[in-house]
């Protein structure tokens, strides 16, 4: 574990060295060296803009993520357990899976206006189908032996869900959550670029118009860093906690 972290740090450092070298060679405003970008990050933190936009973007990520996971899990469970539901919605699912994110975003903005709700829902709708597919697969893989135990001992619906079904779905939910986070934060930027007046995506659009590569890199690096910290600090401990019993 320790040596793997050391290796990643080393390889990232190598990337920064290569970047510095390339910037030196190019000597252009369009490829600023790392030092300039880091200075820009610090100054944006100091004047408060970076944290404000980052915070707003993260709130949108969180809202869309929770919405997508909740709806996706319920629908996936229903489709996995009830054949009629599966047949009824399988076609919709295929359609949604193949719908480009951009189309959903445009349609939601057109239909519901350039609002916060439309933005968050557009992102969630892009993620829901993959959550449904993953959870449905997990539901189909439920061990009937344990469900029989729940029936014989009269667990009832709620306790069966909590003690028999949920633990078996956990690996699938974790997989959906991880791929979900990485998909959602990318789509949130597009949503912000197209129809919001704050957030990292909005800032990137602004700096794109100014051809300000230094600031684009500054915001991007800060954002990627925060997402990586979320992954390490929340997602991975959650996954370990859920699989304690495997011992």
């Amino acid at each position, binding site marked *: 574990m320790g040596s793997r972290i050391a290796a990643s740090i080393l390889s990232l450092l190598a990337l920064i060295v290569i970047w510095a070298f390339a910037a030196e060679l190019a000597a252009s405003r369009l490829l600023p060296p790392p030092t300039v970008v880091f200075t820009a990050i610090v100054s944006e933190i100091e004047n408060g803009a970076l944290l404000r936009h980052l915070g707003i973007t993260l709130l949108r990520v969180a809202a869309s993520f929770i919405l997508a996971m909740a709806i996706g899990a319920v629908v996936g469970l229903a489709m996995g357990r009830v054949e009629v539901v599966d047949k009824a919605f399988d076609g919709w699912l295929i359609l949604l899976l193949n719908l480009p994110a951009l189309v959903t975003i445009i349609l939601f903005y057109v239909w519901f206006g350039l609002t916060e709700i439309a933005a968050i829902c557009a992102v969630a709708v892009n993620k829901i189908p993959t959550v449904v597919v993953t959870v449905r697969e997990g539901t189909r893989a439920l061990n009937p*032996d*344990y469900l*029989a*135990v729940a*029936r*014989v*001992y*009269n*667990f009832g619906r709620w*306790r069966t869900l909590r*003690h*028999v079904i949920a*633990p078996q779905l956990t690996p699938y939910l974790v997989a959906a959550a991880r791929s979900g986070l990485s998909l959602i934060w990318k789509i949130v930027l597009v949503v912000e670029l197209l129809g919001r007046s704050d957030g990292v995506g909005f800032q990137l659009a602004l700096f794109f118009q100014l051809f300000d590569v230094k600031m684009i890199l500054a915001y991007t690096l800060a954002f990627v860093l925060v997402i990586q910290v979320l992954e390490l600090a929340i997602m991975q401990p959650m996954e370990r906690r859920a699989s304690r*019993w*495997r*011992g």
Partner: protein
Amino acid sequence: MSMLDIHIDHKVYPGANGTGETVVFRDFKLRAAANEFVCLFGPSGCGKTTLLNIVAGLDTDFQGRGGISDVNDRRQPRIGYVFQEPRLLPWRSVRDNIRLAVQNDPVRLARIDELMAIVGLTGLEEAYPRQLSAGQARRAALARAFATAPDLLLMDEPFVSLDDPAAERLQGVLLDVWSARPATVLFVTHNLREAMLLADRVVLLRGNPATIVADRSITVPRNLRPGSAELRELQDEMDALRRDPQDTRRAGSGDGRA
């Protein structure tokens, strides 16, 4: 009073790829009196586990009546089912596995630790099933079934794969718990000696569809059973019935498919 009245008109297993089906039960009847300990005995594939699943309400794909007539009018009869494998939820501790079966009855919840001590699991309350030996897992499954204070106890070869001393000890535990709080028991076994030691009645099943080849009550008191000549005789007789079917034609068409 609790009592079992099974009448299965028709139960089939679909064949692989739709190629013919196996009739497991046709017009099959079995009754058990309240608090009677019935051992079901017979070759593999003659439908013993299917019968337990039908009685437990897990298998509803049959024609007929599965069984438990009402204990009394006030509540659903409670079932304890010791499956062929322990089937403990691997992501819950041993105590939680038992607690989940007990629901919220304070009296039965309070008895969990006592039951775990009786079956010899003291100190393993917080262990996860993966950490248990095969024998310990079987004992936990037993404790779970007892903990529900069942009206009907279904047991599907609960002591199989245990060594003889362990099996004998658990047979003793089963009889102790059952005498302290009687229930109707359907006990499936391949071990005729075990059936002789435990049961009030031994039922021998054979063939597809399953027929009852022998149905004998055992009146010898349980404490006199080990080494009893009368039981020795009965055991030999049933052993012969199992091996040497009087009706070779039916056995030939039945056992081959098992």
